[in-house]
């Protein structure tokens, strides 16, 4: 393993070191790469500041022993991430749901392994586990996280949209006066911070790994160049696009969640309301009750339960989809 590390010459500048680290981590989770680059830069800059007499190349040569060469650091982060992911992963709901009957549990496990490799389950036992999987969604913590995110996204969506549209129009229109420039810069900075905040929300609720540290900026350039880089960085614009998209998406998520949940719950509890409160049961069309038959009661409850679990599936699916969208637009290297 050691010979492999020495295959490449040690970098002589900090940007070169970070570039090698990024290359060594290529293919890993972009969010983890962002964190790793941030950590490495903190260490390297601190070391450089501690040893004022030494050149950057000398400091890096020393650091390769203590902090690690880029390839070693990359391997350490990859290993840690695997361990952390294993610790964070929620137990598989399917196995807990049917734990009482070992045969079905085995079938469910087999089916979820199959679904991971995208083979549709067709045999008879797989059909039973399909049922378990349909109701097992209720035991997946990500389902409720996603559901809560859907309800929350209306508020955050409105806020992000307002912030971006106000900030952009205000600073651009004030650019005629000199005061528009600092406002624009403040606004761009705030977008980066908000992107991290949204990342935290998404990671907590949807379980998608998002960066915990800001992106790496090359500090060897002057501040004018760094400001210029902020404009040419595609991520600045993609983040704003994401925030603008959050208004329609958030409205859609909120509407879907509230409508489906209230319809499902009222279908489930309508018969109970009829029994307990004497509220007439039925389906009204233009003030005429077309569905007051007694046999509709169990149908109503069944449809309500199915709709409720269907909604949970939809929420989990939307959570996954939105996590992927956020990852595409907010985290790119």
């Amino acid at each position, binding site marked *: *393993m*050691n*010979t492999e590390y020495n295959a490449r010459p040690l970098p002589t500048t900090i940007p070169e070191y970070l570039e090698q680290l990024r290359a060594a981590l290529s293919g890993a989770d972009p969010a983890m790469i962002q*964190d790793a680059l*941030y*950590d*490495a*830069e*903190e*260490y*390297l*800059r*601190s*070391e*450089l*500041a501690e040893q004022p007499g030494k050149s950057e190349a000398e400091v890096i040569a020393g650091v390769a022993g*203590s*902090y*690690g060469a880029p390839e*070693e*650091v990359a391997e*350490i*982060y990859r290993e*840690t*991430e695997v361990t*952390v992911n294993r610790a964070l992963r929620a137990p598989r709901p399917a196995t807990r749901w049917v734990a009482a009957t070992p045969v079905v549990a085995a079938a469910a496990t087999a089916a979820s392994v199959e679904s991971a490799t995208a083979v549709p389950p067709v045999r008879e036992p797989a059909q039973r586990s399909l049922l378990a999987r349909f109701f097992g969604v209720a035991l997946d913590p990500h389902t409720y996280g996603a559901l809560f995110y859907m309800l929350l996204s209306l508020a955050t969506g409105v806020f992000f949209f307002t912030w971006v549209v106000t900030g952009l129009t205000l600073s651009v229109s004030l650019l005629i006066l000199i005061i528009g420039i600092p406002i624009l810069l403040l606004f761009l900075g705030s977008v980066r911070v908000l992107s991290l905040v949204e990342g935290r929300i998404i990671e907590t609720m949807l379980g998608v790994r998002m960066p*915990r*540290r*800001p992106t*790496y*900026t090359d*500090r060897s350039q002057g501040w004018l160049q760094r400001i210029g880089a902020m404009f040419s960085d595609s991520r600045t614009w993609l983040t704003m696009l994401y925030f603008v998209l959050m208004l329609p998406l958030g409205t859609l998520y909120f509407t879907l969640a509230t409508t489906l949940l209230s319809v499902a719950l009222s279908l489930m509890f309508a018969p109970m309301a009829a029994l307990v409160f004497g509220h007439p049961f039925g389906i009204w069309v233009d003030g005429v009750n077309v569905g007051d038959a007694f046999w509709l009661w169990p149908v109503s409850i069944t449809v309500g339960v199915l709709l409720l679990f269907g909604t949970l599936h939809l929420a989990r699916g939307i959570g996954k989809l939105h996590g992927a969208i956020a990852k595409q637009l907010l985290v790119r290297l």
Partner: protein
Amino acid sequence: MTELDAHLRKFQKELSTGTVSLALLAVLAKAPEPLYGYLIAKELERVGDGVLSGKQSALYPVLRNLEGAGLLESHVEPSVAGPPRRYYRINDDGRAALRQWIAAWNATRDSVESVLEGIK
């Protein structure tokens, strides 16, 4: 690399997994003020030997995990030298955990030492 070296590396890695967390908590418990990653790494380097003298890049993910577990708290301060630094401070949960960990460590160390006694 010989096979013996590979065994040693694997053993060191497994040994360091828990001890690094313990050492990080201890360093922060003793520190009078919050420390950032580099200072913590240097402190461990000063006193550290054996598995604690491993690559310091391994400390940062562990710090993040300890913070995620609620044993540490952190805040960010800007710095002239580079990117803003994240300062870590141990909280009450962390101190309680550290006390338990120290007890577990002492028990383990004693029993391992008595097992190892007399081996040349």
